[in-house]
C-alpha cells in the first residue's frame, strides 16, 4: 500500500502552468496523483494523511541552480548531506551543485560519485553541474558528451570567466552539438583580478581594490556574440548590473538563446551593505550600486531575469575572518532564497513570476522533471506562509557553514514543510 498525502484548503500555485487556485492536491507513490479546486471538497479520500493548509501556499519545491558544497574536498564547510538539510529547510527540493570542488568535477566518474553520494546521504535531489574546462583552467574543454551521459545537467567554470575566446568558442560550439547548457560567469578577468568591490565613491572611501561594474557587461557582450556564432544554449549564472541585463534583453529580443540568473543577495543588498568591511557580505561578483540592485529586482519582476539562485557558498571562519580584500567571497543562501524571492513580491512583483524564477524556469533550463504541480510529476513540494515575518539568525541555520550575509535581517515568508518525492524532508516547529 503506497503512502498517500492529501493537501486541502491550500492555495495551489503552479508556475509551470500558471495555475493559482484554492483547492486540493493528492500525492501517491511519490508523485502528484491529482490536483484541482474541488479536490476533497465533499469527502475525505480513503486513508490519506490529510494536511489542512488553510492560509498557506503549496508550490513546486524550489530548484536552486547554483549551490556550492564542500563535497568532495572541503567537507568541514559543507557536505551534500548538510547542504540538503539547509535546502529542505529553505523549501528547496533540487540543488544543482557546482563543480568547483576538490577535485574539480570534470570527469564522468566524479559525476557518478556525486550522484551515488547524493543518493546515499542527501535529503533533496542533487543535480551535478560539471566543469566546462578541465580543472576550471579555461584551457581544455571537458568531455561534455560523456559527462552528460553520466548525469551532468550543465557545464560551468563557476566564478571563473573563460578568458580565452577561442577556447570558449570551441567549447560552446561543441556543447551545441549535444544541446548542452553552458553557464557562464561574467567578469572580465584582467579588469577584476585582485579586486574585492565595485569601483565607486564607497569603495574609494573604504580604500578597497575595486573593479568597474562594466567588467560584467563587457563579457556579456562578448559571450552573446559567441552564442550567435555557435548556437550554444547559454545561461549567465548570476548577473548583477543594469548594463548586462540590457544586453541580454536586447539579445533575447533578437531571438538569441540566452538566459540569465541573479543571486538573491544582489536583489536584497547593495554595496553600502558592506558597511565596516563586513566580510560575510563579500560576494562575487561584488555587491553593486543601488541603481543596479533595483534594476535586478525590476528585471525579475518583468521576467527579463529568468531565474533567482542562492549562489550558496559555505565558508568558514578561517576564510571569512580576514581583511576584506583577502577574505573569501560568498554567502550561504539556501535558507534565504525563498524569503528573498518573496520580498520582491512584497514589494509589488507578481507572486507567480517570482515563484516561476525559482521553480519551473530553472527546472526547464537544467532539463529536470521537477518545478511543476502537473499530474504525474514527482511530488517535490513546498508548503509556505508567504507573509510570516521572521528574523534570520545565523546560528539557527541548518547549513554546516553559517556565513550568511543576512544575519539579523527581517524577512517575510518561509517554508513550513518540504516534500521530496512525496516524503516530508522538513517540517518547521
Amino acid at each position, binding site marked *: 500500500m503506497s503512502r498517500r498525502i492529501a493537501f486541502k484548503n491550500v492555495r495551489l500555485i503552479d508556475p509551470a502552468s500558471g495555475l493559482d487556485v484554492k483547492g486540493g492536491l493528492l500525492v501517491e507513490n511519490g508523485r502528484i496523483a491529482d490536483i484541482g479546486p474541488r479536490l476533497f471538497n465533499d469527502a475525505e479520500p480513503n486513508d490519506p494523511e490529510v494536511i489542512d493548509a488553510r492560509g498557506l501556499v503549496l508550490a513546486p519545491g524550489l530548484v536552486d541552480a547554483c549551490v556550492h558544497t564542500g563535497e568532495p574536498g572541503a567537507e568541514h564547510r559543507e557536505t551534500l548531506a548538510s547542504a540538503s538539510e539547509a535546502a529542505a529547510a529553505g523549501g528547496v527540493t533540487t540543488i544543482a551543485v557546482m563543480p568547483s570542488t576538490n577535485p574539480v568535477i570534470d570527469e564522468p566518474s566524479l559525476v557518478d560519485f556525486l550522484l551515488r553520494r547524493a543518493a546515499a546521504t542527501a535529503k533533496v535531489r542533487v543535480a551535478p553541474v560539471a566543469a566546462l574546462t578541465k580543472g576550471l583552467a579555461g584551457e581544455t574543454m571537458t*568531455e561534455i*558528451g560523456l559527462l552528460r551521459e553520466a548525469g551532468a545537467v550543465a557545464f560551468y567554470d563557476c566564478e571563473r570567466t573563460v578568458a580565452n575566446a577561442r577556447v570558449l568558442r570551441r567549447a560552446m560550439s*561543441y556543447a*551545441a*552539438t549535444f544541446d548542452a547548457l553552458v553557464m557562464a560567469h561574467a567578469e572580465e578577468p584582467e579588469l577584476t583580478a585582485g579586486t574585492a568591490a565595485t569601483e565607486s565613491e564607497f569603495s574609494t572611501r573604504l580604500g578597497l581594490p575595486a573593479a568597474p561594474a562594466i567588467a560584467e557587461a563587457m563579457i556579456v557582450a562578448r559571450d552573446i556574440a559567441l552564442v550567435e556564432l555557435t548556437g550554444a544554449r547559454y545561461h549567465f549564472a548570476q548577473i548583477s548590473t543594469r548594463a548586462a541585463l540590457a544586453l541580454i534583453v536586447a539579445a533575447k529580443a533578437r531571438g538569441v538563446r540566452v538566459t540569465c540568473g541573479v543571486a538573491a543577495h544582489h536583489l536584497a543588498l547593495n554595496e553600502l551593505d558592506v558597511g565596516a568591511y563586513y566580510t560575510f557580505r563579500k560576494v562575487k561578483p561584488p555587491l553593486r550600486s543601488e541603481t543596479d540592485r533595483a534594476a535586478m529586482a525590476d528585471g525579475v519582476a518583468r521576467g527579463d531575469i529568468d531565474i533567482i539562485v542562492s549562489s550558496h557558498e559555505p565558508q568558514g571562519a578561517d576564510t571569512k575572518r580576514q581583511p576584506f580584500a583577502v577574505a573569501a567571497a560568498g554567502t550561504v543562501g539556501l535558507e534565504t532564497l525563498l524569503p528573498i524571492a518573496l520580498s520582491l513580491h512584497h514589494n509589488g512583483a507578481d507572486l507567480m513570476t517570482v515563484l516561476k524564477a525559482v521553480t519551473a524556469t530553472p527546472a526547464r533550463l537544467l532539463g529536470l522533471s521537477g518545478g511543476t504541480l502537473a499530474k504525474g510529476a514527482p511530488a517535490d513540494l513546498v508548503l509556505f506562509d508567504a507573509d510570516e515575518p521572521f528574523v534570520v539568525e545565523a546560528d539557527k541555520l541548518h547549513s554546516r557553514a553559517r556565513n550568511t550575509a543576512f544575519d539579523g535581517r527581517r524577512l517575510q515568508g518561509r517554508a513550513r514543510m518540504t516534500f521530496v518525492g512525496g516524503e516530508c524532508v522538513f517540517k518547521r516547529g
Partner: protein
Amino acid sequence: MTSANPLPILKSSHLLGIEGLSPEEVTALLDLADSYVAQSQAADKKTALLKGRTLINLFFEASTRTQSSFELAGKRLGADVMNMAVKNSSVAKGETLIDTASTLNAMRPDILVVRHENAGATELLSRKLSCSVINAGDGAHEHPTQALLDALTIRRRLGGFENRIVAICGDILHSRVARSNLRLLAMMGARVRLVAPRPLLPADADRFGVEVCTDMKTGLKDADIVMMLRLQLERMGGAFIPSSREYFRFYGLDREKLAYAKPGALVMHPGPMNRGVEISSDIADDVEVSLISEQVEMGVAARMAVLDALSRSIARKSDSRGHA
C-alpha cells in the same frame, strides 16, 4: 596532327581541384581509370604512353600513399619520375615557393605533382610554371585525385552515383579530402551528408548543397557509403574536441553506428587510420564492408588516368605551338 592522338579529356592543362571540372570530364576520367585498373592487374603493368616525359613529385608535406601512388602511376605509363625531398632542398634553406618553382621550371618537367600545407599554393605554382600542375593536396582546400579514386571505388561497387547517399564523417573542418569529395559527389548526383561535431564542421557547410548532421544516427541513416576521415590526433589537445575516447563514443565508427546505415553499406577511409578513434579495428579489417585497401589500388589507376589526360593536353599545347 597524327591520327594516333587520342581524344582530349580535360579542358585545362592542370588538375588543381574538382572545382572547375564538369561531370563529363569526371566521367571520362573514371572511364579511362577503369582501363588502367585492368592494366595494373595484368602481369605486364607498363606501357610507353609517357615515354620521355618527366614527372616531378614535390611534396612539402609528409605523404606515404599519395606520393608512392603518383610515382607508380608515372612509372607504369613510362614516364621518368623524380621525387623532390623538400627536407634536404633549398626550401629548407629559406627559398620562397616562387623561386623553387622557377628553378624546377628551368629543368623542364612535363608534370609537377605538388602537395603543400597552404591552400592555394598549387594554384600559385600553376601560374608560374609552364608545365602541368597536379594538386596532391593544398592545405584544407582540395585533394582532387583522392576524390577521383574514391569516386572510382564507389562507381565500380555501386554502378553510379545518382541518389546514392554518401555520409562523410569526422574532421570535415581540416579536410581537403572532404571538400574535394563533396564537390565531386554532389556534382555527380549523389546525396552527400557531412557528419561531425559542430567544432569540426566548417562555416556555412550547408551552402554546398549537402546535408549537415551533428550525430551519427541521423547522419548515417540509409547511407550507401560511410566515408570516415582521419581525426588529426595532433590537434587533440582539447582544441576542437575534448578527448579521443569521447570522440570514439559519439563519432567513431563501430558496429552499432554502422547499423544506422543501409544494410550492406560500405566503409571508406582515405588513410592513415586512427584505430579506436574514428574507426574500430573490426570494421577497418572486415573485407565484407571495408573498401580501404581497394581505395589504395584505385588510387594508382585514377592517377594514371589523370596523367594520361593531362599528357593529352600537353600534346595539344605542343601541337598548337607547332602549327603557329
